[in-house]
């Protein structure tokens, strides 16, 4: 598996070595000096990477924590447990859908599910899993939707996390939600309030487009009445394009209400592409009762997308977060998140949690059994370190004053303040 344009080597190193990768090699300790740019001169990939976290000198919230503890607080005093889209989560992190990559529907994805369960973080199962891999298969099947749910539950504690099942317009035909909701196998999730459904409106890698897959000619002929078929590679396969579905504010509002009506025991999530009206769409979704809105920045996506879309279409995550401002519901951010700094920046700019997509895939590709766990442990370590450096001890206390965008006047407020105090 390759993940071009993505810090693949660093992610693989974390998948193998875990939290040790948060630091320079330990052998260099006491022998070398380091400073900025000590590890190469790579230009930041986007505006969020270019931004800096800016701890203040005066820290009233640290004083509060000091009084609370009766001693000076440390990074280990940062409490990362939070509520993510209606689920109790051990960390402000969730596992994103793996998209239509082949690896996303293989046994590796089952291993990833097991690790997400053990970590106590929510997991999203992609829209394509049922149509492509099937739902039930054999009772002891090692891939497919039920295998992933089973793997997750086997490792999860009794109350943490949750499983969120995606559906989009084109696979509404497969009735994935109804299938899951009426299946006795889903009862353990429903009984513990840990089943969610995610309405996929769009994705970061190709805003405005639906699913794109490459099929052989015979398969393509069978689905030609349902999908656009383009013969592009003279024999190597044909392009199958699905519809992303049509949305207006009323369609989105009513679809969410319909989901709440039909699946009252499930949490409702909505995944948006980074559209220019993302703030309006997110507000509409929260107002209609969505438990979470995921915004997938244009940097995101495990999906295979046309070159034209990779660098030129859709808003970057930082701009999405800026347009949304103070969210009126649970906001989840995805798009090129793999380590703690980007996570803390997204949390400071309004997200409740960040999703790992490509990073998680790369990590389980490097080490199927432990890769995701190590990657997330390293990320969590960095989030604790950075949050405490900002003088704060919960992710919810992070605010836009903690982030500085170079060249933007007045972007970071010098006065330390709590996000809750913003109006």
């Amino acid at each position, binding site marked *: 598996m390759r993940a071009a344009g993505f810090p693949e080597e660093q992610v693989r190193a974390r998948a193998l070595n875990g939290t040790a990768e948060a630091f320079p090699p330990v052998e260099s300790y006491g022998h070398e000096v380091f400073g900025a740019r000590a590890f190469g001169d790579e230009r930041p990939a986007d505006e969020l990477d270019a931004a800096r976290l800016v701890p203040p000198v005066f820290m009233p919230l640290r004083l509060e924590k000091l009084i609370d503890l009766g001693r000076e607080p440390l990074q280990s005093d940062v409490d990362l447990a939070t509520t993510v889209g209606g689920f109790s989560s051990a960390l402000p992190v969730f596992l994103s859908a793996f998209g239509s990559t082949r690896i996303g529907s293989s046994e590796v994805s089952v291993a990833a599910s097991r690790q997400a369960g053990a970590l106590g973080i929510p997991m999203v199962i992609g829209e394509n899993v049922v149509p492509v891999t099937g739902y039930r298969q054999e009772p002891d099947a090692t891939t497919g939707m039920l295998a992933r749910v089973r793997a997750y539950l086997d490792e999860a504690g009794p109350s943490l996390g949750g499983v969120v099942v995606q559906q989009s317009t084109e696979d*509404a035909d497969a009735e994935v939600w109804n299938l899951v909701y*009426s299946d006795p196998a889903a009862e353990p999730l429903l009984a513990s309030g840990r089943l969610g459904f995610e309405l996929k409106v769009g994705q970061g890698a190709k805003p405005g487009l639906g699913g794109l897959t490459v099929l052989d000619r015979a398969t393509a002929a069978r689905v030609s009445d349902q999908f656009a078929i383009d013969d592009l590679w003279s024999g190597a396969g044909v392009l199958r394009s699905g519809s992303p579905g049509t949305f207006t504010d009323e369609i989105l509002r009513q679809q969410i209400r319909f989901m709440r009506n039909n699946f009252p025991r499930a949490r409702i999530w909505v995944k948006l592409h980074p559209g220019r009206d993302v703030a309006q769409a997110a507000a509409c979704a929260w107002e209609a009762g969505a438990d979470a809105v995921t915004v997938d920045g244009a940097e995101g996506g495990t999906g295979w997308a046309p070159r034209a879309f990779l660098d030129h279409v859709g808003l970057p995550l930082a701009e999405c977060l800026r347009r949304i401002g103070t969210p009126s519901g649970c906001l989840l951010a995805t798009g090129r998140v793999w380590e703690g700094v980007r996570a803390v920046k997204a949390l400071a700019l309004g997200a409740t949690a960040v999703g790992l997509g490509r990073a998680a895939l790369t990590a389980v590709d490097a080490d199927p059994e432990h890769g995701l766990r190590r990657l997330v442990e390293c990320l969590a370590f960095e989030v604790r370190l950075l949050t405490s450096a900002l003088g704060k001890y919960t992710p919810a206390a992070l605010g836009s004053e903690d982030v500085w965008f170079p060249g933007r006047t007045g972007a970071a407020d010098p006065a330390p303040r709590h996000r809750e105090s913003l109006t």
Partner: protein
Amino acid sequence: MEHATTVAIEPAADRRPPPLAEHLDSDTTRAAMLIQQEVLGAARTYLRGEGFVEMLPPVIGPVTDPGARGSKQVDVDYYGHKYKVMSSGILYKQASLLTFDKIFYVAPNVRAEPVETCNTQRHLAEFHQIDVEMAHGTRADSMRIAEGLLTYVVRHALTAVPEQFELLGRDPLAFAWLLSGPFGVLSHREAVDELHLLGHPQSPDAEIAWTGEELLSRQKDRPFFVTDYPKGSRGFYDRESTTEPGRLRNFDLLAPEGYGELVSGSERESDYATIVTRMRETGENPAKYRWYLDVMRQGVPRSAGFGMGLERLIRFLTGLDAVWQVNAYPKVPGEMAP
């Protein structure tokens, strides 16, 4: 065949159907079937008297009623194509108005209901509806027919087979209010307010949940209508109010004493563009519904209609604990039964 003067009826609330042979050989089942026979005969007499023509419903089709409340459609392989067993005949009912202005079915339906509904005592995965549709009808017309139909079949059954009611220990006085005057009407909003006053949580944007419906029904001594459900709680074919956007021109008819919903009905959307838009609002892919949309594009009359759940009606009449007791071959959601 000899009947005991009373049947020892075991409360069904905490148990599931017995083996089929035992169920079929029970006096309770026999009494329920004899009452059902009278109800079906009377329903046909009443509806034909009102000018309705009985048609026979299809069993499978490329699409069916997308329905609501989380039930799953049942697929069949039809010459290599995925067909659906009818979850309701609504799409065909509308199309059939091209043949007659007033039609009805006695229709079998299959819905793989969520497993949680096996405890409601009101759900079967396989059930029947008396399905009625009338061209140029309004909601008021449809409510009038539903009320007339219910009153007529109850009166007929009580007169025709009083001994069966006696056998089941169902007091005919339970229907005195039903037979004595018009049914009450409550808007969805009023129903929500009433539930809130009773201290029961209920979303104003959603279908009234099973427990809420039962609670509401327990407060009443005769059947009552609930009208104007919010959009987002029903299928795309229930017409949206033009004067009150967000509200549907629909209704449910609920039985008293906790028996709950017997009938769902509505004025229908018949405008092609509105139907396509409403399909999107209910998360449906319009491409699936090609035959139906083609018919709608050609034009069918505006209409109104309803479906009356046969087993629920018989349960209300017999006063039995669970709906499976009034179906000869009951299929409780989530349980494998013959």
